[in-house]
């Protein structure tokens, strides 16, 4: 039987760089110019199967439009982060740098960070060179990719590379789920109803 691991992945970056589009491409292999893919979704899930049949399941948290106003809860216990910039917007790389500094300061030190330049289909409007972004990523020890959520180019590679970089040496947790994912919760379970006094506690919905 193949092993399955679960990790929390967060998306970060300035608004409109294509974070939600990248998730939609990765999870549903779709692209939509207008639709907000994440309405009502706490997070999306998608799996990557590695060469040795190990299955890595990502619990993907999109910003839900809160990107400018960071909630520490959002990247709490994240195992990996995809920090996205738009290759046609010079300012979006600066924003990405701010985010990476924030993660380095506040997130778990073992977090795997991928810097991702999106919208490569718009080459004519490129403002951020590959050299510039790659140099920065190397300095900070980050993985670096370029993608187009629109054409799908490079998208699955980002997630596969992250899956390979994550520590798959059987985390001690019983479910093989990393801390922070829903499956790894170990505290008290609020959804558990007590049977002894259940009758008047049951909800009438």
């Amino acid at each position, binding site marked *: 039987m193949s092993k399955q691991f679960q990790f929390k992945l967060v998306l970060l970056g300035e608004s409109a760089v294509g974070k939600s589009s990248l998730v939609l491409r990765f999870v549903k292999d779709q692209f939509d110019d207008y639709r907000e893919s994440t*309405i009502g979704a*706490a997070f999306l899930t998608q799996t990557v199967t590695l060469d040795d049949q190990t299955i890595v399941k990502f619990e993907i948290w999109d910003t839900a439009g809160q990107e*400018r*106003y960071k909630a520490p809860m959002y990247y*709490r216990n994240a195992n990996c982060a995809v920090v996205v910039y738009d290759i046609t917007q010079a300012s979006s790389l600066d924003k990405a740098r701010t985010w990476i500094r924030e993660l380095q300061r506040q997130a778990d030190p073992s977090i795997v960070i991928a810097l991702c330049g999106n919208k490569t289909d718009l080459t004519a409007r490129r403002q951020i060179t590959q050299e510039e972004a790659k140099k920065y990523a190397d300095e900070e020890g980050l993985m670096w990719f370029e993608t187009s959520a629109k054409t799908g180019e490079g998208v699955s590679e980002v997630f596969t590379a992250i899956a390979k970089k994550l520590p798959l040496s059987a985390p001690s947790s019983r479910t093989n789920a990393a801390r922070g994912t829903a499956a790894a919760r170990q*505290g*008290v379970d*609020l959804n558990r109803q007590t049977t002894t006094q259940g009758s008047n*506690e049951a909800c009438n919905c």
Partner: protein
Amino acid sequence: MDEEYDVIVLGTGLTECILSGLLSVDGKKVLHMDRNDYYGGDSASLNLTQLYRKFRPNQTPPADLGRDRDYAVDLIPKFIIASGELTKILVHTDVTRYLEFKQIAGSFVYRDGRISKVPSTELEAVKSPLMGLFEKRRAKKFFEFLQGWRDEDPVTHQGNAFVNSGINLDTDSMKAVYEKFGLEPGTQDFIGHAMALYLDDDYIDKPARPTYDRIVLYTSSMARYGKSPYIYPLYGLGELPQSFARLSAIYGGTYMLDKKIDEIITDADGKFVGVRSGTETVKAKQVIGDPSYFGAGAEVGDGGRLRVIEEKRVIRAICILKHPIPGTDGSDSVQIVIPQNQVNRRNGEYLDLQHTLIPDLELDIYIAMVSSTHNVCAKDVYVAIVSTIVETSKPELEIQPGLQLLGSIYEKFVTVSPLYMPLSTGEADNIFITRSYDATSHFETVVDDVKDVWGRVTGKDLVLKQRNPEEAEQQE
């Protein structure tokens, strides 16, 4: 900002965030703003930098407290009572998926000069030093009576052989009920204050029903997870507003933090039009906000209009300790209720007068303590908040009996906060103001406020629909 919204919510305290989340789920177009650059308002949890910036602006946090990121210090001392209404909202809205909870390890009461565990099981009750042997038997009958009570079954109203006539919870006073079981004043004190969690003795002469409800809430919460009736979110209470803010956002709510609100704009009839921030104006049909956005504390109120009034004041002392609270078996987290009947003090002197009813102060002191077990501070650090409703002009002396139980205090941050309530219901002007966080030890009154505001804003009762998990979490 020329967009128009259904509702603008001002402040990201828990009350406002629950409302924002529920309104967004209900399909309303919500704009949620806060003057601070962090979520939570008065119910936030702060890291060390934020904490020192707030209370010691000229001082950097001492290095021996450890890493900034390990801290999430609550501004208000509250726990979640396990079988209460907030738990229901957390479960029904499914925000539990963002949160992880742990139990509070113990619930204690100060009695006869020392701290004792509030008994949670019959076995504990039998061993408890709170009651003598005969009193234990009487208390057992009392709790059996409460447990057996069914409104529709008069047999259960008789209680037992000790009780010769049936009890009517709606007309008999709590005093009468205590007397029917012959409970001693000291026992009444711990039941009324440490279990029903009344802050003073006013309840005794009122009908017994609400006290019955509170005791049942306490005991059923206790039965749920075992150690205490309370649970607590890892990383601090500030996670609660954040999780509801995310709920609001994933249902389309728009967030703007770090935004100064300069004016609440109304029309000639005083009806809400919009809010102004600098030169920008946003319009909406209704506005909901915490009192600080509506002139709380200002000299002339908001635009000369008085919208909120100060009801009471609460003193809260956030104390950083390097040890657990003495007498609590080294518990990593506790609530300690100090019934005012158990303390006396004059001119700042704290006298431990056993069994003496105190003339000058009436309201209980609470201690709420959490620690690194709940990921709110560095290892071997304990954060206790001592609080009470202010009754005199020297509030800090009023909490002395609580502070003295803590042992040596590494650092103490004291606030005296007015509790505001709105002066109007908002139905006439579409301005709906929430209440300040009160001195009770849990969030039940916060949920009351949420339901109350919801009713007035939407014109309907709050019905909690369970979100469809399939819909919420798309599977591959």
